């Protein structure tokens, strides 16, 4: 069994690392056997796609290669051998020349390596390795947005550091220096913002601010919650679509993570911004309102949904609304009522396909044991959660638990055939809403059955 996989992967690797000079090093018997594998196998790509933001085929496939060929239990020395053989030439970390082309990408490879190493460690070392990989990813994300001059500066700062050796104290020093340098770089940015030189859309969305929070969100996505996204190919690269998701987790982190799933892992258009619709009550909260608007979220009114869809945007709605986020821990993964089908009406009016989305893992980030309703009413909140940590630990209690998540994008449900008149037919609307709800519930149940632990 494992034999056949090896052949396919080897063939894939040979196909993609096109210039033959690079492939020369691998073992000869593999290349000869590779001829049997005629067509590229989709499975390999599917695994590889997850981590790849830019098409660096060689690095990606090499990574898969290592993982498949070497079972987890294998001795690390042997593993290293295979890796070098697969890659054919460069030693990754300190090779300064490597930074010239795509610094973000070479860091991405280091990150993969560190993560790979960590997965073979036990206990604390594994955790530390994961955090280190997350930090490298964070730097890489930031460097994608830097100018050449800035990249040169960062390279200088990191020059003495072996990035793959995260157990060395100089690694942490190097990372610290880079982060500090980035703070200085931000000063210019802030100065420009203070002169008002930026751009917002009529909804208040500020693409620069999205770029600013993107690395943090990517950190939460990859390192904190280790989210696996399935079915992102169902999210269209062009044109309108309405994502309909279950809602959970007291604070609307799930919306942010759906957005991040598209921006981090979408195979074609990682720059698409998902416009989540939020309860219009949030627009009355100081600081929350401008933050939501800047990151592209919009008050949840039917007119807004239709308007955004007509502009060919990706709109994400949570029909459960407050009943979803304010759910008690004991009711987790039981979908609440789906409003009155307003989201279906909006999709029908705009003739947008509906993509059901099932988020698993967000229910446990703040286990809400009790809802202090009378206090909430007094303060004008929609709910006031009591969790094992909040409000007892104050702000610390608002740190979400690092559960493991999965986000599944289901195949789109077309609304074309109903026609816009169907939006006024309550039967069609309610039955479509029910169909979407059943799809999400079924997907959640499947994912829950597959899950072995919440962490």
């Amino acid at each position: 069994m494992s034999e056949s996989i090896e052949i396919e992967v080897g063939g894939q690797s040979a196909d993609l690392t096109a210039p033959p000079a690079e492939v020369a090093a691998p073992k000869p018997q593999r290349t000869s056997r590779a001829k049997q594998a005629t067509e590229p196998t989709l499975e390999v790509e599917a695994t590889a796609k997850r981590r790849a933001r830019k098409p660096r085929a060689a690095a990606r496939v090499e990574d898969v290669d290592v993982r498949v060929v070497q079972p987890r239990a294998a001795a690390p020395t042997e593993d290293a051998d295979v890796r070098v053989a697969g890659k054919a030439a460069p030693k990754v970390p300190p090779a300064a020349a490597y930074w010239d082309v795509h610094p973000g990408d070479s860091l991405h490879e280091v990150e993969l390596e560190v993560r790979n190493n960590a997965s073979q460690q036990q206990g604390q070392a594994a955790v530390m390795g994961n955090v280190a990989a997350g930090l490298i990813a964070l730097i890489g994300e930031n460097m994608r947005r830097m100018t050449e001059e800035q990249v040169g500066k960062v390279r200088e700062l990191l020059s003495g550091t072996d990035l793959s050796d995260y157990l060395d104290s100089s690694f942490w020093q190097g990372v610290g220096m880079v982060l500090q340098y980035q703070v200085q770089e931000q000063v210019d940015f802030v100065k420009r913002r203070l002169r008002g030189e930026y751009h917002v859309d009529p909804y208040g969305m500020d693409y620069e601010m999205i770029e600013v929070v993107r690395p943090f969100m990517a950190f939460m996505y990859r390192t904190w919650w280790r989210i696996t996204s399935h079915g992102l190919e169902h999210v269209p690269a062009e044109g309108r679509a309405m994502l309909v998701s279950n809602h959970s987790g007291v604070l609307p982190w799930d919306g942010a993570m759906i957005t991040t799933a598209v921006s981090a892992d979408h195979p074609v258009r990682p720059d698409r911004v998902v416009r989540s619709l939020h309860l219009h009550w949030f627009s009355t909260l100081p600081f929350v309102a401008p933050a939501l608007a800047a990151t592209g979220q919009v008050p949840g009114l039917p007119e807004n949904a239709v308007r955004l869809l007509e502009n060919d945007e990706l709109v994400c709605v949570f029909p459960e609304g407050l009943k979803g986020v304010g759910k008690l821990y004991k009711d987790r993964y039981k979908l609440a009522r789906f409003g009155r089908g307003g989201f279906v009406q909006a999709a029908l009016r705009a003739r947008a396909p509906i993509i059901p989305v099932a988020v698993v893992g967000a229910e446990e980030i703040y286990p809400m044991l009790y809802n202090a309703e009378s206090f909430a009413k007094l303060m004008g909140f929609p709910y006031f959660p009591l969790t094992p940590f909040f409000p007892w630990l104050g702000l610390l209690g608002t740190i979400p638990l690092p559960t493991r998540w999965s986000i599944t994008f289901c195949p789109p449900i077309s609304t074309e055939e109903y026609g816009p008149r169907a939006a006024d037919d309550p039967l069609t609307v309610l039955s479509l809403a029910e169909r979407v709800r059943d799809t999400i519930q079924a997907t959640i149940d499947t994912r829950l059955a597959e899950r072995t632990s919440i962490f």
Partner: protein
Amino acid sequence: MSTVLINGIGSALGAQVARQLSAHDGVTVLGLARCEPSAPVGCAEWLVAHLSGLQLIELLRAEHVDTLIHLDFAGADAPAEGREAAVQQNVLGTMEVLGACIAAGVSHVVVRSHVGIYGANPKNPIMLSESRPAARGGLSGLLRDLAEVEHFLAEFTVRHPEISVAILRFAPIVGGWSPLLEYFAQPSPRTLIGFDPSMQLLHIDDAANAIVLAALSPCAGAFNLAADDAVCISQAIRLSGQQPVPTIEALIGLSASMGDRTKLRPWPFDISFLRHSCVVDTRRAKDVLGWSPTHSAVDSIHSARKNGRAIDDPATSEAAMRAFLSRKG
């Protein structure tokens, strides 16, 4: 051949409309103002007067006016003198003008209004369309008068189908005097802490274009007019060269009620506009009037900032001198 009377030709906007209309063949432009026009008015003939309803009918009949442009609102182009007088001029004045138009057989009326009449409310959708009725409360000053005028017009147009009334709802106009520009340019303008709604603006050229288009075509109903882009309030203040001072609402209310008018210039709008956005959809104006904005909001703020300000930037001075010296070659 048509005769257009501009009521309120004295303001910067009225004068610009007069200039643009003068360029059209077959249009006779007349003007009525309460003060002498502040800017050239092209080949328009104008009189400075404050006419009663009957006198207005006489004027309209004698000059065979068929289109009237009503821009004369207190507090829109110059600071209002007092609240009572402003209501008299804005609400009752408009009713009088429209009554005179009916009596004198004017067939087409263009009235200016403001997008603020929708109010700033979290339950308003972001891209407001013209079908949304004017807010019934929560407005004060000029916006309240305009909302009242809109309610009156809604009734009036149903009762008098023989006259076509076009209502132009402008985003805050940049160019000339406006309460909003005053607010932007004052030292440390106060904003509401934790809120930064987006808003739209409109350059005075685009506003004048829209009035001309609406006056020369037989259109009726309301039109939203705004530049295509939007700015955040804090961004607009920064582009105007000031830094916003976020303040809690109680302090804003207190300083307004303490009546420290010398320090606090006229508040441009209700506090709710500092909290929630009021953004409109301009599709109808583009489709029906064929109007399209030529200036973005950011550009118009930049040009307003440059207007009438001494140049202290050496690079600009250098460029200006080079351009001047090379004018002959």
